[in-house]
C-alpha cells in the first residue's frame, strides 16, 4: 500500500522554561513579550511523523496550527523539522483565547477529511491549558479509533500497534487506520532544525485558512471567571541533622507504620 498521509497538530504555547505570571486583571496569564515555542508534545508528534516518512511509511506530512498570525512561525519550525507543507487556520487573538479543544478538534477533523489523511498525530496535551482532550475529541468527531499517550508506534498491515503510557505502567493496543494517536514524552527525542532546513522551510507551501472555510463555529462554551496565582507555600526550616528531622516527623505522627 502507498504511504500514509499524516496530519500533525502544532500548537504555539508559552515556552516551557518561562515562568508563568498571572495578569493583573486576573483574566489570564501574561503573554506579551513572552517567549513562545511549539508545544513540546507536538514537537514529538512532528518528529514521529517525519520518522515515518524517512522509513517510507508516510508519503506526506502536513502540519497544522490554529491561532493568531504568529502560529506561522511555529509551522515554519515544523517544516524545518521535515513536514512537507502546512495549514494555518487564522483566528484573531481575542477569539482564540476563548476557544476550547472541542473547536480545534472540529477544525482538525475537517482538515483531515479534506486532505484524505490516514493518521493524525497530536501531542497528548498542550502545556498551557493542560486539557488533554483534542486528540480524543478529534477521533470521536471522525469516528476513528484513538491511542493516547503513545510511547511507541509500529505500523502493521492496515493497523498500528501503539504502546501507551498508563497509570500503572504500559498498555498495548492495536487500532485500525485511519486513527488518531497522541504522543507522550518517551516516544522520541525531537531533532533540532538545521540551518539549511530552516532555509528550505521558507519555500515550503503554507495554506492560509479561516474557521469559516471549514464551516466550523467557534463560539465559546466556557467562560473564564478568573485566573489566579496558586496558594504559595512558605519555606520552612532547615534542620541540622537527620535525627532532628526524624524526631519532628514522629512528633507529627507522620512516621507511624
Amino acid at each position, binding site marked *: 500500500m502507498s504511504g500514509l498521509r499524516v496530519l500533525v497538530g502544532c500548537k504555539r504555547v508559552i515556552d516551557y522554561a518561562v*515562568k508563568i505570571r498571572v495578569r493583573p486583571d486576573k483574566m489570564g496569564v501574561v503573554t506579551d513579550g513572552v517567549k513562545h515555542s511549539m508545544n513540546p508534545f507536538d514537537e514529538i508528534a512532528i518528529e514521529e511523523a517525519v520518522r515515518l516518512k524517512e522509513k517510507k511509511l508516510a508519503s506526506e506530512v502536513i502540519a497544522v496550527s490554529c491561532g493568531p498570525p504568529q502560529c506561522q512561525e511555529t509551522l515554519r519550525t515544523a517544516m524545518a523539522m521535515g513536514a512537507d507543507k502546512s495549514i494555518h487556520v487564522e483566528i484573531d487573538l481575542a477569539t482564540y483565547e476563548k476557544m476550547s479543544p472541542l473547536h480545534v478538534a472540529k477544525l482538525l477533523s475537517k482538515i483531515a477529511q479534506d486532505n484524505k489523511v490516514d493518521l493524525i498525530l497530536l501531542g497528548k496535551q498542550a502545556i498551557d491549558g493542560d486539557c488533554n482532550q483534542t486528540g*480524543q475529541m478529534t477521533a470521536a468527531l471522525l469516528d476513528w479509533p484513538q491511542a493516547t499517550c503513545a*510511547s511507541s508506534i509500529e505500523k502493521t498491515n492496515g493497523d498500528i500497534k501503539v504502546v*501507551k503510557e498508563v497509570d500503572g505502567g504500559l*498498555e498495548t493496543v492495536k487500532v485500525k487506520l485511519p486513527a488518531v494517536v497522541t504522543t507522550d514524552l518517551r516516544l522520541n527525542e525531537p531533532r533540532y532544525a538545521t540551518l539549511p532546513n530552516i532555509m528550505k522551510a521558507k519555500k515550503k507551501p503554507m495554506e492560509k485558512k479561516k474557521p469559516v472555510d471549514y464551516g466550523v463555529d467557534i463560539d465559546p*462554551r466556557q467562560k*473564564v471567571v478568573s485566573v489566579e496565582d496558586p496558594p504559595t507555600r512558605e519555606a520552612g526550616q532547615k534542620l541540622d541533622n537527620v535525627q532532628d528531622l526524624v524526631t519532628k*516527623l514522629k512528633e507529627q505522627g507522620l512516621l507511624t507504620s
Partner: protein
Amino acid sequence: QSTLVIAEHNNGKLTPITLNTVTAATKVGGEISCLVAGSQCAKVAEEVSKIAGVKKVLLADNDAFKGFLPEAITPLVLATHKRFNFTHIMAGATAFGKSVIPRVAAKLDVSSISEIIGVKDANTFIRTIYAGSAVQTLISEDKVKLITVRGTAFEAAAMGGSAEVGQAPAEGVSNDKSSFLGQELSKSDRPELTSAKCVISGGRGMKNGENFQLLYKLADKIGAAVGASRAAVDAGFVPNDMQIGQTGKIVAPDLYVAVGISGAIQHLAGMKDSKVIVAINKDPEAPIFQVADYGIVQDLFQAVPEMTELVGKN
C-alpha cells in the same frame, strides 16, 4: 441535577479515585449513578453499591469492554446518558478517564472540563493551568458537563451505602476499531503513588537506577510509595510511571520526601499540595527548599540510610 460517575476498576477491584470522584459529584448535588463497565465485573458493581451517596449502579458486563477501550466504552456512556439524561458525567482524571470523557464530550458536542480541583456550584469549576502555575475558575455553559476529577483534590467517599444494581443499556455495543493486546504493569507491594499517605521521590541526584534501592528500603520501613522526578525518568533510572510532576502523576500525600531533587517548576506542580514536604539535597540553593517544610542540606547517600536506620527506633 443528576450525575453519572464512570467507575474505574480492573474487573476485580474498584480503583480508589472513583471514591474521590463520587465526592466531587456530591458537591455538584443531585442524584448520583455509577456506571460499572467491564467483563466479569459483577463483584465491582457490588462494591460500588456500598459507596455512600451512590443511588444507583448500572452494570454493563460484556466482553466488548475488555481492556476498557474508549471506542467501546463511549457508545455505552452515550446510550446510558440517552436513557437517563444526566446533567453531569464524571470520571477520575486517570489514563482511563482522560481517554473516555473527551471522546464522549465531542460526541455530545460539548466542551469537557479536565482535572477539576474544586466545585463552586453545578456550573462553576476550578482547575489548574500551566502545570499548576495558575488556578482557573470557569463557568460551563454546556447542557451536559463532562468532567474529569483530580483525585488528590477531593476526599474519598465513605462506604456504607446500599444502592440498587441494575443493568446499563449495553445492547448492541461492539467495537471493531481497536483491540487490547496486553499490559505491562509495574509490580510492587508498595502503595500506589497517587493514593499513598507517604511518598518518597528521587531525582537526578540519585545518580543511577540501582541507588533507588536506598529509597525502597526507607519506603518499606514507613509504608511509603516511591516516585521520581522527570530528570530521573529521562536519565533512565526508573520507568515513566513513577514520574511525579506536570507531565506525570499528581500526588498530595501527608508526607512527601524529595531526595536529590532540585525542584523544577514541572516537578513542584506534581507535589506541592502535599501536607508536609521534606527535602534532602546537598545544594543549599536548590529551589525545592523554598517549598519544603523541613530541609536537610546533606549528601543523600549519608542522609537516607541514616533516616532509614532512625525511623525504626523509638
